[in-house]
């Protein structure tokens, strides 16, 4: 699961008001190379919760991403490459996603998070 997807997911449990972002507990990170596409990155930048991305990338072991980002930084190829790497190339293979409000754990196996809710959580 890439950080792009992690940035889109929020906890769906009944009663939770702010289920984003899900905390990451890492067991295994895999780096996969993905085609660099500046247009896509610029488009996504507006939708991404940048702070959550930075935190997540640090937990995954990548510290190159700057703490704050302005849209003007998208012109810099250097920033774009780091952004690309953090967003698209870091994969959580094994680990857990944790709901920030309830602490409920969603396991991640083979890169697939299990977001199935129990009957009482719906």
């Amino acid at each position, binding site marked *: 699961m890439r950080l792009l997807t992690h940035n*889109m*997911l*929020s906890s769906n449990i009944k009663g939770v008001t702010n289920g984003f972002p899900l905390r990451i507990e890492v067991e295994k990170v895999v780096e996969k190379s993905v085609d660099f596409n500046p247009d896509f990155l610029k*488009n996504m930048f507006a*939708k991404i919760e940048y702070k959550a991305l930075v935190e997540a990338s640090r937990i995954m072991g990548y510290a190159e991403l700057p703490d704050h980002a302005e849209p003007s930084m998208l012109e810099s190829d250097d920033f774009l490459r780091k952004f690309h790497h953090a967003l698209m190339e870091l994969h959580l293979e094994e680990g857990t996603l944790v709901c920030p409000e309830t602490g409920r754990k969603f396991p991640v196996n083979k890169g*697939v998070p299990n*977001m*199935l809710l129990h009957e009482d959580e719906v």
Partner: protein
Amino acid sequence: MTSRPELKAPPEVFYNDEEARKYTSSSRIIEIQAQLSERALELLALPDDGVPKLLLDIGCGSGLSGETLTESGHQWIGFDISLSMLDVALEREAEGDLILGDMGQGLGVRPGVIDGAISISAVQWLCNADKSCHEPRKRLKSFFESLYRCLARGARAVFQVYPENLAQRELILGYAMRAGFAGGVVVDFPHSTKRRKEYLVLTCGPPSLSSATPKAKGEDEESCSDEESSGDEENQTVSISDRHRPRKKQKLNKKVKGREWVLRKKEQMRRKGNAVPLDTKYTARKRKAGF
């Protein structure tokens, strides 16, 4: 007559390892899924600007439909309830991220971030009450509300569905509208039992030109020439443009047969060798009502 899979078992049970493998190794199924996905992508009407979009593939299964999305250059996130199917998708190295989840529980995706959603042969599973805690209506509501929330303004959702009957289709459409979607149903090849396919085309946002129901395929099969294809004979699209006042299903009347058509038909008959009266200024003239 093969029975519907939806009547056999819940999707996570029906699509077990054996079925998943069978499903994905059938070249016929692969081809059909590819066709359906391509058509769904077409109906999604994404802007042709070369910028990859972030799409959802709901009920992505073994990644067959996702492949079409990847081939078109887009990024996608897939949801499915069957781990067996997702395992096959992993084996086939699906490019999109996969999530094991139940669409009837809500998608759990942040508001306004998705550029489009497709679903191939999946949404009708929501209409089943497989567990005692399942209430299809609640699940449909959950699904459509969460989908509406996560789509960006003006984004579309295209679902190829196999509704069991009219009531099921109306049920699905009803909940889509209640969630705020506008749109309608496109039926390709409505007259062919084998080729008939239904697509729900839903738009997120105020109805506009772009949310007008797209034209279905295969209606022109029986018409005599290409010129008539814009005439919408026997149009089977159901338009719901105003979510507050759903229009009843309309079957458009056949376009009144003009002089052009009559002359063409007569020419055809002549070529066949029939005896046809000469074409005069009186041909296809409007007669008095009592004629």
